[in-house]
């Protein structure tokens, strides 16, 4: 695959009409919220920019990001992979294997120095010198650093690459480490989720391909266009939340009526993602629509913020089943008992004390002490 062709060249060769091309540009511009002139900007970029070479590496992960990615409907993943970008290396999708595949890595690195995108799915485990993830006979972390050194930017796909995900959950035996803690000298765009939404993944790639730069990122390095609002903010069950209508049990009447899943531990109020707007599988549904709360899979350390089915997170320092309320009630009981006992001892000491008596050892004292 050559990366010198433009996107426009490729799709025209595939028989796409110019009319359909401009339609695609308008739709893409609209879906990114680019405004009135966006469509012509997209068209211009796709006609003139060489296709961006992408190297897709897999670290410690489950490939659910790839599984999600290949189900993208708008745009179709075949358009992204075959037309839009030049996906030069992805060991799960590519035909080449072994030494051939390795050669592509080196070739891309030399030929497109500073111009290719490094997309990383999964993360490197750093414990035991990275021995928990061997890729091509070497620790993954070494290959990652090598390929990142000559890249233009790094895309951290999914919760693994962005935050660490399940392999980084306590006690994180392999010391799985998110990409931004390992690669510190390149722009990194986090696309968290377990997996991320397919259209979000292809949308990010389309943006970078179109404009040759990263989309606007938020404080945590996520593209604002997909991660600036919580699931809760755009949830279609939100009116039930505001009204105070909640599912209390999984099989109760309220669950059938589609009330809010807040009490069932839904993490929608603390999760930034586009699920409640973009939805999944070509917009068919998303967890809450299917009657299950959000588990907050695009958030930092979501495995350690459980349980998934309770509103309050477990606080492990205080025992297996503790949460803020249980700790609070226990502390209140201790303090309350303390106050009662203290009162009792105080009262016992006051028995027989005459009012108006002088304090025998009341010292002369500087009243401003301590002020």
């Amino acid at each position, binding site marked *: 695959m050559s990366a010198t062709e433009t996107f426009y060249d490729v799709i025209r060769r595939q028989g796409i009409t110019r009319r359909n091309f401009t339609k695609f540009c308008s739709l893409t511009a609209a879906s990114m919220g680019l405004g009135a002139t966006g469509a012509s900007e997209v068209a211009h970029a796709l006609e003139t920019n060489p296709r961006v070479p992408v190297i897709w590496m897999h670290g410690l992960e489950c490939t659910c990001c790839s599984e999600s990615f290949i189900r993208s409907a708008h745009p179709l993943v075949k358009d992204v992979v075959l037309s839009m970008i030049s996906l030069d290396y992805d060991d799960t999708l590519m035909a080449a294997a072994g030494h051939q595949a390795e050669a592509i890595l080196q070739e891309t690195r030399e030929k497109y120095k500073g111009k290719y995108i490094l997309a990383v799915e999964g993360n490197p485990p750093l414990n035991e010198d990275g021995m928990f993830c061997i890729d091509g006979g070497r620790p993954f972390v070494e290959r990652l650093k090598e390929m990142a050194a000559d890249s233009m930017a790094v895309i951290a796909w999914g919760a693994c690459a962005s935050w660490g995900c399940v392999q980084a959950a306590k006690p994180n035996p392999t010391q799985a480490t998110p990409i931004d803690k390992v690669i510190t000298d390149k722009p990194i765009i986090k696309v968290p989720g377990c997996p991320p939404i397919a259209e979000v993944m292809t949308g990010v790639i389309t943006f970078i391909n179109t404009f040759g730069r990263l989309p606007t990122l938020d404080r945590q390095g996520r593209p604002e266009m997909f991660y600036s609002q919580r699931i809760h903010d755009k949830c279609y069950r939100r009116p039930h939340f505001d009204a105070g209508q909640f599912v209390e049990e999984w099989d109760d009447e309220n669950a059938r009526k589609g009330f809010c899943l807040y009490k069932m531990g839904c993490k929608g109020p603390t999760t930034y993602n586009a699920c409640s707007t973009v939805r999944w599988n070509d917009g068919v549904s998303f967890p809450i629509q299917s009657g299950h709360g959000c588990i907050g899979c695009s958030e930092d350390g979501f495995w350690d913020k459980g349980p998934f089915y309770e509103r309050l*997170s477990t606080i492990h320092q205080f025992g297996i089943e503790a949460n803020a309320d249980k700790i609070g009630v226990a502390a209140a009981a201790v303090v309350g008992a303390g106050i009662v006992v203290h009162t009792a001892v105080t009262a016992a000491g006051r028995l027989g004390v005459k009012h108006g008596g002088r304090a025998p050892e009341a010292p002369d004292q500087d009243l401003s002490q301590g002020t």
Partner: protein
Amino acid sequence: MDYAKIADISELKGQVVVARRTVYVYQAPVRIWHWVNAACMTVLFVTGYFIATPPGSLGGEASAHFQMGYIRFAHFAAGQTMAVFFLMRFLWTFAGNAASKQLFWVPVWKKNFWDGLFNEAKWYAFMVKYPRQYVGHNPLAHMMMFFVFTLGTVFMICTGFAMYSEGAGRDSLWAKAFGWVFAIFPNSQDVHTYHHIGLWVLCLFAAVHVYAAVREDIMSRQSMISSMISGERQFRDDKV
């Protein structure tokens, strides 16, 4: 400092006439702030608890109710009121008397502070018979006020507004002013958890505070509760 004034005792006909030293210690802005803050905290405790653990589910149409909406509104309104009064209370330290500054600093470098602190701790452990007297906070109270109340309140204001900014939006003033909280705790669920722990810490602080105020009013030969109403602290040790 000219605090001492002698009560007018000419009209008293009791058997024992006692002149007690009275000191004006809590100026009006401090007292107003104290009670507004107490009211806000009460509202915040109750509504905060219900936000984490909502009351029983309501039936019927969603359009017929706004229960969580009202609970959250009360929480936000009380929180914003508390924050504004806390800010004004801080500004008052530049205009107010010495006692008004105690909330925001602890003289840990002063020997008599530690001496007083241990003495006060002994007083609460029933190891000394009489507590010392102070115009403002005693050192133990001073310490608790700063480290639990003041720092706790600052933490609650920061995390509270940070969470409020999540609903207000990324471009809101709140997000610009308090969004840095999420740089420290990237997962908002953590901020919720810590804010909820903060609720319990301040709730228990309030319980201990009320107990100590009542007890000291009875036991320490100094007025406490009425001082926060009139501003005057009376020393009941019968000497002028």
